[in-house]
């Protein structure tokens, strides 16, 4: 299949998050997602890339984060790859958003948002030894 594929490779620096967001926003818009869907994919990507930079690379800024966007089975897909230490999503506690703010755990909010903002999330170890997160957003107009 020959659908357009967009790829961005940036250093693992938090200062690159805005650039990644613009890149994904443009690819998602070209793929026909509406404004709200574009924002949701941008935000889920932002959280996944933040995880890569802060946890997989533990703040090291000399790593690489690859962001690849493409269309598959009528879904807009964003695949984020890093080459940092393994990330285990199961080890991150899910926040209970029904708890009063005073009792909430501080962590886990990013992962919670990722799951809420896109239709499908897949975590895998990349063959190159890093982490691969695949986010899928269905290209339907009604949700």
């Amino acid at each position: 299949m020959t659908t357009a594929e967009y790829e961005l490779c940036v250093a693992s620096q938090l200062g690159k998050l805005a650039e990644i967001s613009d890149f994904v926003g443009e690819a998602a818009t070209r793929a026909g997602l509406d404004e709200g869907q574009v924002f949701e994919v941008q935000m889920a990507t932002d959280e996944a890339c933040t995880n890569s930079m802060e946890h997989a690379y533990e703040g090291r800024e000399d790593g690489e984060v690859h962001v690849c966007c493409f269309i598959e089975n009528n879904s807009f897909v964003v695949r984020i790859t890093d080459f940092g230490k393994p990330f285990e999503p199961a080890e991150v506690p899910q926040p209970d958003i029904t708890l009063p703010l005073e009792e909430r755990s501080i962590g886990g909010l990013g992962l919670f948002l990722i799951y809420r903002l896109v239709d499908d999330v897949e975590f895998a170890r990349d063959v190159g030894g890093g982490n691969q997160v695949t986010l899928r957003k269905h290209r339907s107009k009604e949700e």
Partner: protein
Amino acid sequence: MDDCREPDHTLAPSGRLDALTAPEFDRQICTLPDGATKVIAVDLTQVTYIASSGLRALLVAHRRQQQGGGRLVVRHPNPRVWAVMQLCGFDQILDVCPDTPTTND
């Protein structure tokens, strides 16, 4: 609404409140005088995007204020920022004053 009274301090971050900028926002809140600050207002008028890091900073600030007997008030989140806050349940707990005028209005 009582929470909308004149704050002792107002912070007005701008642009993206993400993993890059949230630590600086956190530092700004930490440098406010302890104890004497009863009401801290965070004016989000100029904030275009809030990530989980920004939400965490608000959560930490809220807790710090509560422990010191003060309050944290959030003002003017844009619709997108507000939607994210709602998604995470922050609308149920944080004091939000959407209609309070600011100097930027």
